[in-house]
């Protein structure tokens, strides 16, 4: 392993753990009936967003998915506004108009989550096209999934980014299920990064549960893009710890495979990094976790205490539509 500062490894751990806590606590709120609609947890996939976003500059962009809370947090999203949004409150990122599937944080370059599988792919390529026209060197990471790979816009977007050498990192989060359909049944070649070659796109596979592996590969990809030699396709192999959304028990997920990936929990791996390579003690880590738990508690309080959007103000707002 390369040498990393304790500070950096702690930062990665903080992000991973924050995502874990956000999802876990929101599932509780969902079970209490406080969150409604669809809520797609990122549990088990935290290392992908964390490692990828750590490789970006402040002025870069990300495009997210319906399973997007992790991306938002990894890009520096604020827990208060996120909790308020999934609770549908006026103080949320989208003033309660968007909800879990549509959180966007333009200030941090997060173009937003998307309720349409694959919907963000062309949008991300267009963000990069804007960069290209302006002559800037910002990089865009597009998060998408194995499910989106079988939508036509994946083929189109990969090709479009390739013919114009656009600075895009296609971050394929292969969590091995399109909703409930296993990737090996939905495509003959389940190693999806191999599709890059046909489009002349540099492509690699990486362990999506190992935050440093994701970080290192993304750094290389980002460098390639900044030099004007993009795009790059990265396939991060990972696994969901639960069903497609909160109300999906995920009975179709084989026990042994789930156990295998739970044993390779991205949080555990990052925790080991801290102990083995940064001389952190269990107490040090507990202190980090404690702090995040408190922040999340405060965020939930903030969300719960925030006003519901005013129906009158809303009706006035849409009057001129």
């Amino acid at each position, binding site marked *: 392993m390369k040498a990393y500062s304790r500070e950096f490894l702690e930062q990665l751990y903080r992000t991973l753990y924050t995502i874990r806590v956000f999802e876990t606590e929101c599932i509780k709120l969902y079970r209490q009936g406080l969150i409604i609609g669809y809520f797609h947890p990122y549990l088990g996939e935290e290392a992908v967003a964390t490692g990828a976003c750590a490789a970006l500059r402040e002025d870069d962009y990300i*495009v997210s998915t319906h399973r997007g809370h992790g991306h938002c947090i990894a890009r520096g999203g604020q827990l208060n506004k996120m909790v308020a949004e999934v609770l549908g409150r006026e103080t949320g990122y989208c003033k309660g108009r968007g909800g879990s599937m549509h959180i966007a944080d*333009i200030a941090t370059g997060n173009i*937003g989550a998307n309720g349409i599988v694959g919907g963000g792919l*062309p949008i991300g390529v267009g963000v990069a096209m*804007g960069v290209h*026209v302006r002559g800037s060197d910002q990089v865009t990471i597009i998060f998408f999934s194995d499910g989106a790979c079988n939508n036509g816009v994946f083929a189109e977007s990969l090709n479009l980014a390739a013919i114009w050498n656009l600075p895009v990192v296609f971050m394929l989060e292969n969590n091995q299920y399109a909703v409930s359909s296993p990737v090996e049944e939905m495509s003959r070649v389940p190693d999806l990064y191999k599709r890059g070659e046909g489009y002349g796109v540099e492509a690699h596979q990486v362990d999506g549960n190992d935050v440093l592996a994701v970080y290192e590969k993304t750094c290389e990809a980002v460098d390639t893009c900044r030099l004007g030699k993009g795009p790059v396709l990265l396939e991060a192999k990972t696994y969901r710890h639960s069903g497609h959304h909160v109300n999906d028990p995920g009975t179709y997920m084989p026990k042994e495979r789930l156990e295998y990936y739970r044993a390779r929990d991205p949080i555990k791996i990052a925790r080991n990094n801290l102990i083995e390579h940064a001389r952190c003690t269990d107490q040090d880590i507990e202190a980090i976790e404690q702090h995040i738990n408190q922040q999340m508690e405060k965020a939930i309080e903030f969300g719960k205490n925030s006003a519901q959007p005013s129906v009158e103000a809303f009706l006035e707002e849409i009057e001129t539509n």
Partner: protein
Amino acid sequence: MSTETVNTDIKMRELMVREALNEALCEELARDERVFIMGEGIAQRGGSYKVTVGLLDKFGPKRIIDTPISEASFTGMCVGAAITGMRPVVEILFIDFTSLIIDQIVNQAAKYRFMSGGKGRVPMVLRTQGGSGNGLAAQHSQSLEAWYYHTPGLKVVMPSTSYDAKGLLKSAIRDEDPVVFIEHKLLYMDKGPVPDTDYTIELGAGDIKRPGNDITLVAWSGMVKRTLAAAEELSAQGIDAEVIDPRSLVPLDKEMILSSVRKTEHLIIIQEAIRRGGVASDIASIVQEEAFDYLDAPIKILAGKNTPIPFNVNLEKACVPRQEDIMRAVKEILNT
């Protein structure tokens, strides 16, 4: 006749609609370096209807971009570029092909501002072209404005003259929200006066193409010309029709239509699109709700036949309102 005041010192030229559109694009590209154009065959070839001729030479391949046949994705690219501060104009050669981009327009472009709680904007223009009349058959001749009219978050503009085409396109490019700009394939070669100056036309301002007192005829896009011809011929027979072109369907110049109806007390709406679920029906419902007491007769709608457009020229003609249909309907409504 136009409601805009045009300074008499300004030189007027006779331009084809496609030339007027080209000028609008040219001026906006020069004025704002965030503007760029994407589409199939729009750069080197200058577009199938020659609207983008010469732009590649003037503005270069970074801003005038030929795309692969990947409509969904290059339209989606414009959404992404627009969110991050650019002003893209995407051309979809036929409105029929916009079925391929409907997710990006309806689920992405139209909703982003709303879903982001007003923090994000999508200042893009979708230029496309519709209508029947030259034997292009069922998949290249449709009038699909109702699809976009029906979707909150989009503006829908349909010019009928060179003057309007230029002024409206410039406004559409400068607008902060997504605009679906629908041209008509039969109008590209029509000539009309265009001032030699920078002007815009507000989206949502209709135009009285012909003032009159006896009956209000509302028509847009390809139907305006036909309606004006009918009005001229009726005038020789002593019927004084007022012809209103809303020019943009969203926003709609409701007040212009309502005040005309209050004056004439009769209304016919003429659209090329099929009637079922169409814009004409919606305008009729607005007028009956807001000006019922002024109406002397039921509102009449003339619309396209409820069918895919046939290839055969005679069958094709039978599918959309003709000048004689308009004249007959006027006489029927006025009982003359």
